[in-house]
Each structure stands twice: as C-alpha cells, then as structure tokens.
C-alpha cells in the first residue's frame, strides 16, 4: 500500500472542505423542504382574495411561532365539510355554525374565538328595514320581501330565521318569497338592498352593520332595527382530532398571545397581524358557549340536526 504524499493529502482535504461548503446550503434547503407542513382551511367570507389577504399574515405568524409551515387554504362554505372530512386540512377557521357542524360530526376541538366589534367574541343578528318604510316591528314583517344572508351564516340567516319562527312567523309561509343575494359580499348587498328599496327587510349580522357605520358606508339614521337576536359566538379556530396535541397547544397559545403590535414579513412588507386580519384578538372558548347555536339549529331544522 502506497501512502499519498502530504501535498496531495492537503489538496484532497481542501476539496473536501469546498464540497462541504457548497453542499451546506443544499442540505439546509432540503431541511426546509422537509419542514412539516400543516394546512389551515379558512372559510371564505366575502371573496377568496379578501380571505387570503386577511389571513395570510396570521398564517405566517403561526408558522413563525410554531416552527411548522402553515399553508392557508381558502374554502367555500358549502364545500367546507366535505373537504375537512377528506382530511385536506387539520386546522379550521370558520363561522360558529360550521364549527358546530364539524364538532358534532367530526369532533373538531375549539381552540379560540375571534374578538371583534362591540360584543367581543360574540355578536348578534338583526332584522333591519328602511327608516321611512313604516316597518318597525316583527308583526310588520309578515308578507314582506325579506332577504337573508347565506344559509350557513349564523348571524345572517340562522339566528334571524329562528327569531322569526319563535315570533310565530314561518319564513316559508308567512313572507313574500324570501331571497338570498348571489355572489360575493352578500351581507353588504343586503344592507344596500334595503337602503335602495330592493327588499323591505333584511337579515344581517350586527357586526357588518357596525363596521359599515364606522367606515361611513351607511348612516344608521337610514335604518330601523326591527329586532335583534341573542348574542352568540362568531368566527372560531378549531383543530381536527387527528392533529398533533402538542401542535394544537402551541397554536392555541400563539393565538391567545397575539397582540396588536405583532408583525410578520410577507411579500417584502411588514404587516400587523391583527390589523390585517380585521380581528381585535383571540380568546380561548369552551364548546358549551356554542349551545345557543345548537338550540337554534335544532329549532330551525338546520345542519347538523337537519331531518327530512
């Protein structure tokens, strides 16, 4: 066996070092690529682009806080259950009715509720009319053109439908055929529909009215609030039973600790997470807080208790 000369050994050693230096970024890159990926399904509120614009900073924040790569998946309300059942995402951000449906059928765990508007983690539904319409009470709603929000909206449909039923008005029989506007931004369309005389009465989330008044889009003097439903939880973050319990705890902690001052870097911009998401904060919430919604869904024969 011959031994290589010292100079040759040095040269080989240098080559090895160069190779290691060149390979390091590749190895790091590989690590990033194999970083665990977890998807969050965000229920589309007004439009897909608006939903992503709102929640991409929150998704990045969760990635930064947990060391897991979270991916935001915008999901149509009507497709949510099917896609959740198929395991497309482990975490959810939905309205409270969808939360109840997923809880009852698939044991979704509640992590936190969104705090927003005058009533914190809760809000209500209202029935509104135009001030000069003469419609000032539930008794006046009978036989009128009424518009509701999307069918799975807890404070844009469910709560008002339930309120009418409990007041002795069956929306299926006692109203002029009711409508649900099509397309995006349904809640705003309803408010403007009443303002411009398209509908006599509209069922709308109180939160949307508050925001529209605060932004100067409407003046409350133009409307009469005919009736208001009880306060119920609104948007909720949940986790599938299959999700890693440690990760669930980390996500919950990150949400609850999220402050107005928290920022993330996204597409070259530094953004405030809560402000971008239109949220004031997150609160841990018990499943029992959703019992009023369960009662409403039972009374109105809505999912997850629907019977044919």
């Amino acid at each position, binding site marked *: 066996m011959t031994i290589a000369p010292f100079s040759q050994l040095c040269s080989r050693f240098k080559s090895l070092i160069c190779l290691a230096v060149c390979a390091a970024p590749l190895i790091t890159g590989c690590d990033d690529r194999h970083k665990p990926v977890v998807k969050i399904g965000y229920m589309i509120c007004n439009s897909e682009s608006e939903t992503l614009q709102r929640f991409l900073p929150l998704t990045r924040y969760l990635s930064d806080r947990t060391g897991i790569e979270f991916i935001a998946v915008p999901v149509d309300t009507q497709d949510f259950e099917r896609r959740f059942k198929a395991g497309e995402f482990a975490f959810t951000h939905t309205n409270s009715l969808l939360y109840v449906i997923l809880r009852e059928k698939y044991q979704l765990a509640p992590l936190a509720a969104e705090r927003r508007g*005058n009533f914190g*983690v809760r809000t209500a539904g209202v029935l509104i009319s135009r001030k000069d319409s003469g419609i000032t009470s539930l008794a006046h709603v009978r036989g009128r053109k009424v518009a509701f929000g999307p069918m799975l909206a807890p404070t844009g449909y469910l709560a008002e439908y339930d309120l009418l039923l409990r007041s002795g008005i069956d929306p299926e029989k006692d109203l002029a055929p009711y409508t649900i506007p099509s397309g995006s931004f349904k809640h705003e369309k309803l408010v403007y529909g009443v303002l411009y005389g398209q509908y006599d009465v509209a069922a709308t989330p109180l939160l949307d*009215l508050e925001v529209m*008044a*605060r932004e100067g889009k409407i003046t409350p003097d133009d409307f*009469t609030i005919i009736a208001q439903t009880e306060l119920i939880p609104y948007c909720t973050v949940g986790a599938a039973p299959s999700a890693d319990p440690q990760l669930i705890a980390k996500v919950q902690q990150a949400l609850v600790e999220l402050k107005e001052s928290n920022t993330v870097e996204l597409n070259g911009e530094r953004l405030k997470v809560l402000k971008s998401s239109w949220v004031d904060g997150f*609160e*841990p919430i018990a499943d029992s807080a959703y019992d009023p919604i369960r009662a409403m869904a039972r009374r109105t024969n809505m999912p997850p208790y629907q019977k044919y």
Partner: protein
Amino acid sequence: MSFDRYDKTLLMLSGLLIAAACALLIVSAPHDMIPTTVGKSDRTLAKALAHQARLALLERIYGPVEALAANGHVQDALLKLEEISRSYPGEPYGMVLKGDLLFRLGAIEEAAARYADGVKRQGDYVDRTSPLSRRQRIEQVIQRAMGVIASRQAAGESGPGLSSLVRNINYLRSRLAGGCE
C-alpha cells in the same frame, strides 16, 4: 433748530393721532389683555363656563344617541354612536355612553372595558358631584362583573379576556374608592 407754524401743527396733529390710537387700543382690547386684577373667582368662573359649554356640546353631539336609547332603541343608539365616534374617537363621554348601552344589552365584559377607558381619560364619571357622574351605573357593572368573574374562574377559565375583565374591574373599584383624602 427752529419750528415754523406748519411743523408745530404737524407735531400737534401727530400727538393727537397717537393719543387717539392708544385710547382706541385700550377701549377695544379684550378684557384679558387689560392689566386688571385676575382673581381666583374669575378663574373659577371661567372654569365653570368652560364646563357648561362642554356639557352643552356633549348634549348636542350625543343627544341623538341618548334619545334613541331613552326610547328603547338601544341597538340603534349603539350604531349611531359608532357613526359619531368617527368624528370624536377619543372622547371619554362617547366611551362611557357606549358602556351604558353595552351594559343594557348584557355585554358586561365589554361595558366594563368602555367605562374603564372613559374614566381613565376623565375622572368626572366617578365624581359624585359631577353632572356627568356614572357612579351608580359603574357600581352596578362592578357587581355584575364580579359574579361573572367568579363563575368563570370557578370553571377554570383563563385567557386575556378574563384577565382584562379583572383588570378593568379592579381599576374601576379603585377609582370609586378614591385616593388618600
């Protein structure tokens, strides 16, 4: 240097003009520019006048909200207040008024937060002698909130909402108790 009659006339007229101007300045000057004795009673009066003017202005701004609430349209009042708050976002009266409305609508936690915000900005709301005083209502909120806190703590609840409620209620209690007197 000698003055002829023309110079003397000019000098006399100039003197008269200066004297007239001084007299005019003194007569037309605002009262606070005239060196008079500004006593304690004047300052008290000025303060009282400013207070009256403030009350009248608050009544003019928030009158529509209070009228709606007085007629039982509490939610309409709250929405009207949202609209007004765009123009006067930091006004403590608006915050305390929102506290009143939220309390009537059963939102104790949020009502306590608004009262605490308002009282931090202006102490009149816990002053027994002030026409703006809300002591009684704040005491009611504290009483209700203590029950809420106890039941939530008993249920093992935690989180920023509960902490913030406790903090706000403790603040309001300390303001009602007053300082060293």
